[in-house]
């Protein structure tokens, strides 16, 4: 696999200039996610609007580029989604990185930029990194 297929400019932009890496003072929900074996630590914030939709989503923490870029892409995608829609997207993302959903068109339509991470399905050791934010959001919204 070519380096540029995953660690490309668009991906690296989320590392060098993350858009959503900050704490939310008025979060409706907060939740921690960790990958003990990697040392990835994520703290996720979500604020719901009066209509019950996600108004803002952000994160703090540290970890590898795959986990952090994934969290940034996810935060962008979740704005305006209902919790149920968000959970469905978390499941779709999981299916993408574990290789069970391969429909590129569907993935790009639904996951937008996060579809860039589909190559992780060829890197079993990195699936946990990519999933961290999504798994954390899923847990938070289901609780």
């Amino acid at each position: 696999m070519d380096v540029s297929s995953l660690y490309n400019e668009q991906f690296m932009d989320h590392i060098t200039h993350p858009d959503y890496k900050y704490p939310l003072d008025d979060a409706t929900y907060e939740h921690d996610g960790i990958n003990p074996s990697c040392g990835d630590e994520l703290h996720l914030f979500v604020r719901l609007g009066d209509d019950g939709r996600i108004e803002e989503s952000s994160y703090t923490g540290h970890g590898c580029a795959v986990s952090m870029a994934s969290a940034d892409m996810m935060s962008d995608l979740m704005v305006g989604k209902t919790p149920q829609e968000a959970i469905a997207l978390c499941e779709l993302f999981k299916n993408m990185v574990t290789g069970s959903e391969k429909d590129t068109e569907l993935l790009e339509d639904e996951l937008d930029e996060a579809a860039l991470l589909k190559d992780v399905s060829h890197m079993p050791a990195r699936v946990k990194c990519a999933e961290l934010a999504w798994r954390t959001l899923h847990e938070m919204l289901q609780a």
Partner: protein
Amino acid sequence: MATMLSQDELLRIDTNPHKADFPLLAQNPELVFLDSAATAQRPLAVLDAQRHFYETMNANPLRGLYRLSVEATQGIDNARSHIARFIGALDENGNPQSSSIVFTRNASEALNLLAQTIDGIVHLNPGDEVAISIMEHHSNLIPWQRLCGATGAKLVYFRPNNNYEITQQEIEEKIGARTKIVSVTHVSNVLGVQNDIRAIAERAHQVGALCIADGAQSVPHLPVDVRSLDCDFLAFSAHKLGGPMGIGVLWGRPELLDALPPFLVGGEMIDSVTETDAVWSPSPQKFEAGTQDAAGAFATDAALSYLEGLGMDVVEERERLLSMYLCEQLRGLDYVTVIGPDDPSRHVGSVAFDVANIHPHDVASILDMSNVCIRAGHHCAQPLLTYLGWHSTCRASVAFYNDKTDIDRLVDGLNSVWRIFNGR
């Protein structure tokens, strides 16, 4: 780039007479394998031996009275005696002490065997102490942690000084009247440093404690002699020295092995069984319940012959040059921090390092895309990493079948990693 190696030494690691012996390396010339501390590549002689066993000698060893089974048994016995000779386990007449070699699945199992049976020779009470070092692999840490948890004994840790040495003062402070068991790695799988097992064993014996050495990272790379280490037990794995996966060794002083109770029980480890009782075979069979990996033992025998053909002193010297070159080249990169002693010759095979602000998993993934294999993570030594203030690190480790080009390719790969994250 600056190097302490002479032109002649550089030339020696630039040429590589060994790679051709290793099918996986020979068939993948683009592959840069720098993870031998995790597992070594296997030479053709070992693969042939494994196949030879199944093609010509295959029968269940120990029990059969027909020729094939006798040959299979002979295969195991020869391996046992070869291993004994390889690590200097000789009797007063200079003959290998086969009975001191117990086959296990790996070094981890050998250490677990000890931790679970050691009550037969040393009974731990609350207030007693077990001393290990902070640089243990989890395999030589968790078994003792559990044993201490179960008996109320205290687990104490040797800690290295700023120069990554366990000093004589530290040895004397941590081994005292309460110490009953001391178990220390001979070579650290992260820092690459060699611990002075002989000095640790001497102190342990002074206070009447047992001394166990984890040789997983030393037996493959250095001439190891249990008489000069003067420890009571030594554990190591065949797969790290070019033998098959799934076979390991516990060496013990015969009188101590005799005093230990069995580990697993069942077939092939008894002399007689009645409805109410069983009589154990003498060691080492006492510890080897069930059908043993006879083919693995036979192939391990071949792995030792291969290493002896090269000469362990030759292996040690070539790996010393490679480790030094690796260390120096990594130090030459201003964005890399080498973790471990400054003196590059003190890294036995393994060099742990950090790439500034880039997670080791990203480093390893990107290197993988240019066919460079290194390890990233906590290297099964989380307490050490925590002690040193790291969460995870990169680790490159060499064996004699590596060469200068492998290390240059690693450096090129690291430069690409740095460019991807930081632009040009």
